[in-house]
């Protein structure tokens, strides 16, 4: 039986104000972020600008600054902020009893 949620590990495995990556076979790598208020967000690991790996950016508030050209991407929506235009797909993610769970269907869609 395949569940709706993929258990990818413990919350504390993601550094506070940091990110970890989950490669998806045949598809796009996903970046899971943990913000200073201990919330978790998942996005495709790709800046809408030039495809920079968002997982390597500086996480501040609920945004991440892309390491390539410093675009700020909202973790909640994947939208570029300020004057920049573009959007990165987001993947529903939740934390249950300390485990981080990714929405399986959206992960597959991002992969397809």
């Amino acid at each position, binding site marked *: 039986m*395949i569940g709706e949620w*993929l258990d*990818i*590990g413990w919350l*504390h*495995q*993601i*550094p*506070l*104000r*940091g990110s*970890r*990556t*989950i*490669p*998806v*076979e*045949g*598809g796009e790598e*996903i970046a*899971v972020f943990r*913000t*200073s*208020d*201990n*919330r978790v967000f998942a996005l495709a690991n790709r800046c809408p600008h*030039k*495809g*920079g*790996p968002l997982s*390597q*950016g*500086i*996480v*501040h*508030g*609920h*945004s991440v*600054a892309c*390491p*390539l050209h*410093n675009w*700020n991407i*909202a973790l*909640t*929506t994947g939208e570029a902020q300020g004057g920049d235009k573009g959007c990165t797909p987001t993947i529903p993610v939740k934390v249950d*009893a300390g485990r981080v769970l*990714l929405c399986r269907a959206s*992960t*597959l869609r991002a*992969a*397809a």
Partner: protein
Amino acid sequence: MDFAIANDTLSSDDTPLAHDPAPAHLVVIGNGMAGCRAVEELIARDAGRYRVTIFGAEPRVNYNRIMLSPVLAGEKSFDDIVINDRAWYADNGIELVAGDPVVAIDRKTKTVTARSGRVTPYDKLLIATGSDPFIIPVPGKDLPGVISFRDMDDVDRMLAAAEGGGDAVVIGGGLLGLEAAHGLTLRGMKVTVVHLMRTLMERQLDEAAGWLLKSALEGRGQTILTGADTAEIVGDGKVEGVRLKDGRTIPASLVVMAVGIRPSVALAREAGLAVGRGIQVDDHMVTSDADVLAVGECVEHDGNVYGLVAPLWDMCRALADGLVEQHSGYRGSVTSTKLKVAGLDVFSAGEFGGDEGCEDIVLRDASRGVYKRVVVRDDRVVGAVLYGDTTDGGWYFDLLKRGEDISTVRDMLIFGQSFASGGGQSDPKAAVAALSDDAEICGCNGVNKGKVVACITGGAATLDAVRAGCKASASCGSCTGLVESLLAVTLGEDYVGERTTRTMCKCTSFGHDDVRRAIVERGFREIPQVMQELSWSTPDGCASCRPALNYYLLCALPGEYVDDQQSRFVNERLHANIQKDGTYSVVPRMWGGITTPGELRAIADVVEKYDAPMVKVTGGQRLDIFGIKKEDLPAVWADLNAAGMVSGHAYGKALRTVKTCVGSEWCRFGTQDSTGLGIKIERMTWGSWMPHKFKIAVSGCPRNCAEATIKDFGIVCVDSGYELHVGGNGGIKVRATDLLCKVSTEQEAMDYCAAFIQLYREEARYLERTAPWIERVGLEHIIAKVVEDEVGREALRSRFLFSQSFCQDDPWAARAAGAEREQHAHMAEFKPLAVEVLA
């Protein structure tokens, strides 16, 4: 305690009954706050409707569990926290079976069995078993001296342990753990709090408030270890200490495990009731069995489990209404936490991370130790965190629960209810105009409104002029908004509203120099402290200010400041240069640009082994290996380390390379040993963090083949010595160096180099290269400090060398040995079934 009698029965079965025919029998499992409150609510509605029997695991009457902390702290006695004494049970005809917990429920025969074997029939059963402390499964958890903090027995055990003084470790920096720590400190124990997360009470507080709490508790003598993971509780026959995963061992004769609680559901699960995270109930607190109800911390309602006391009151109301057939229903609770830890006021409610469209309103008052943050979405309060001043917690919570539109008071919201509902109404300027002349504007410097206005009418037309004229807003800056409003009110249209100095970023009203001066003069030690004391307007800064603050602290506190990896740009975090495709390039250090066959072989091997698509000779005379994946970096470094090479820091705001020409050793024009000097200088300066990248070159003669006159620090050798040049740059805007001075020995050249670098490290703004820095401060300033002031130069040089004594560990070696492994590894990998991908 005279009522603490095991297996005591406080009233008997033959209690006179008010109703006829015989009332239904309600059996309550749990003599705690929820069970008894439910019975109280029921009695208030219809006293005779049920005959009530309460089973309690503890041999005590009902007491207020949340007041255990004051008992531990010695502020209250057990008698003070009793909610219902034995007379209450007797007066209401309630049978209390204390100290004989129910061990089984039989729903078929509708009976419960107690540990003593006593079987009691019920018509309605109420489960109020509360929650159990969570014990982390580490070796030694069962040693004598390891206790939880859940009931009066635990408190008695702690008090007994505290009599002998000594060391205590509290595992868990949440509410319960901190209260235990506070109580034990007051009882004379030396307490260390070990907390897994980086922030205390991370579920209730954000990082800024957590930091304030931590420093205040440390000020009260506790040792707080955050980010500390317990590996083992050690001891031979009894507790002797706690060993952390990082290897530290903390001595302890008492260990309090306060990492969290879990709904106590074992009884219900064995009885076959629907159990999720808690015992599942409907809006009337009825479980999957119509005759079995449940209430309190043990239940799960609508997917939620509550560990606070406020939801319990609502649940008990709904439960009692249901039991007397006047169904009202429980709809879930929005919770807030308002508490005092060690006399410190803390409040939190709702979501304080905020979702899409959320805005933070932050007020920091450093002089009073206050931090307030209100989270607003669509003109409604959705969360709040308050530290130091929680007066308005109730008001924010009320606005939150009612979902009230706060647009009319938004600008004044953060100042609190009295301010927002006062004369100001919707216009902050009107509010400021309405203030009396005596009203204090700047708490730090004691400046009232009258003085600020007098300063403005006396000619101060900008914020900086006001700061200079009357000191208002010149210290912590938290009144900057008020001063600007006063400028606007006083000058009308004449106020242009411009700042003369550029602020560091949008998070602060201070410029780089102000922040830096404050860090040094006021001895700030951590990023959250700087943000608090200087009234940052965001909870955790931004991608501009965080790396700058990290650098300033690193520079100010060599050897002491703990580098914040998450405040570093990716290259400095991964010790390699990120490329446009997300791979990295790796540059090993080649001292002075000199290499050996062994090094070249090792580089060639790495290139082949890791399929690097390109190797490039850099402008700084090094080899750059391209296309390495972040996962392969530690292995690449291990291979390079094995050949004796270390990080080239080609990725950092740091000393990059010392470029040399061959000099007198080979060149027919060479005047001095430029390669030898270059290597010495690189050995001295490598590993140092700088405001920006820093390049050095040494040319052996004025033909200047090493291009020393476009470097940050360049040496041009001449027959009579060494010309020292500074502030060159070959970037977007080419700038040739200025001549600093000429010296006659290699040692002098190195000493001046160290002094110049340290001056740059201490005075330049983050991300300011030497060229714009020198143009800003003037070459005369540099010459005065480095050349003319011999004592100052020597002091600069020693500060640089002292700082270097902590910086010259190869970061690659640590990573190759396994440090920060998670930075290079994926968290998980997902391989969908092929059929799913097609679907």
